[in-house]
């Protein structure tokens, strides 16, 4: 049986698109929907400034953990905050890849994720956010997806920084939605909107 890749980023892009189109109108020409179609077709997307900040901040954390002198020199204004996060994830398995096959509505999906850090039953995800508000990640598909990928983990902690302050947003396994339900909703939505074939075409797992 064919298997299809499913990532948090794809689900996130879909949720953002339908949130912007409250009536889930697939004929919408809004950018968020166009962006979702781009992701669905696995076309390269442009890296925004916010995305680049996220990548650079995470690289700095990794450089501090690995004592990589060259990497630690970049973005010195973030060093203190990145150092505090590095202290938390030091000793963890960094960029930990995880996958798991699940069956939803008769289709096989390979859930896939790259965890920023995994240590002693806790999954950590590093975020750079210039406008963080507590509870920001409540509706994210990331922690439900990663909990499914790592059944031994009991806690998920977002480590969030604006480059100066560091905040933690903590989720327990027992308070998080079942990702397979979200995947199921996604499949139904793709079917209803005639997009399932596009998904199947571009997200076939090897």
């Amino acid at each position, binding site marked *: 049986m064919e298997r299809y890749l499913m990532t948090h980023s794809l689900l996130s892009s879909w949720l953002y698109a339908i*949130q912007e189109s*409250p009536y889930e109108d697939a004929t919408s020409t809004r950018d968020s929907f166009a962006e979702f179609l781009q992701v669905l077709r696995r076309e390269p997307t442009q890296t925004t400034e916010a995305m680049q900040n996220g990548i650079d901040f995470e690289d700095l954390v990794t450089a501090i953990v690995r004592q990589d002198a060259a990497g630690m020199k970049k973005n010195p204004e973030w060093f203190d905050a990145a150092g505090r996060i590095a202290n938390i994830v030091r000793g963890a398995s960094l960029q930990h890849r995880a996958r798991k096959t699940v069956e939803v509505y008769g289709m096989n999906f390979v859930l896939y994720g790259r965890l920023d850090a995994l240590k002693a039953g806790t999954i950590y995800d590093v975020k750079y956010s210039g406008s963080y508000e*507590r*509870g920001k990640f*409540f509706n994210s598909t990331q922690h439900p997806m990663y909990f499914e990928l790592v059944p031994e983990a*009991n806690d998920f902690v977002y480590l969030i920084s604006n480059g100066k302050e560091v905040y933690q947003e903590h989720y327990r396994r027992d308070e998080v939605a079942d990702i397979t339900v979200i995947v199921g909703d996604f499949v139904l939505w793709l079917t209803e909107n005639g997009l399932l074939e596009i998904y199947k075409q571009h997200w076939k797992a090897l």
Partner: protein
Amino acid sequence: MIVKPETMTFAGKKVRILIAGFPGIGKTTLALSAPKPLYIDVDLSAERINREILNLAVGVTQPRDYAELRKDLGMDCNEMELQAVRANLADFETIVIDTGGKLLTIMGQYGRVIEPKYGQKDGSLSLKGYGWLGKEFQRFMDNIIYRLDKNIVIVFHTVEDKDGDDTKLRIKAEGGAKNAVWEVMDLGGFMEMRGNQRTIGFSNCERYFAKGTRGIHGVYTIPELEPGEPNDFLTKLFAKYNEVSAKEAARAAAERAAYDEAMTAGYQVIATIVDADTANAAIPKMKAIKHALTSEKELAVAFNGQIKNLSLFYDKVLKEYTPAPEGK
């Protein structure tokens, strides 16, 4: 004193709790249900509070400004002065701050006095000022917990915040300080009316993002007080918190010890891998490790990393590691 993690009990730990809710829902009454409360009326609203409720406090103070409050609570004082402050506060087990929003306001005013750079011309705080405010709030809380050894109940008004079609409840506090406030709390609950019952919720939901730890999760109904009944909801909650803390700490320590043992054993085996033969010899040893938490996944990554470093190749026919074929 340094002790082994597994011997830590967390029993009798002082609790930091945030209570948020709309005016009139009964936040002050609930706050004063903590053990032996000293009511710090930062809002200067004690005269508006029903006398019966106010009488629930063991003591009341109305600081004129933050400098006075700092002095009353012995912040920045030397050890001798601290002894006097402790003696003065000996009758109290809990410091109740009403409201946290007002506390942040007077803290900000104090900050602008001690350092003009913390303020802006329009009287609001600068970015640096907000940074200082977050840190000062943490110092304030740490002083109560660690130097004075008291519980803390901090009361916040709630505001509604539109988020798309949803309405979220948030605490009423100055700008960036909102996030900093939550960081130092053990518990944070939103009070709401459900039907004709007052409730406090400690679990995250679509309406608010609360904070529950150590077995305190979900929505609790706050009982209506009958005449003569003790106002002890938070006293009981703190006792439950500490009871669960002790049990959770014991369980977590056991899990952590098993995890550490597995990780140590795993890294010792991985350290012996220097070629294909030692890699093959390591497989049964790795399989024999008794795993806990995420040790199996973490060690698998470390093992595979070592195999990759040595350019070894897993031969699926022979079912063993061999040096990588030429050209690979």
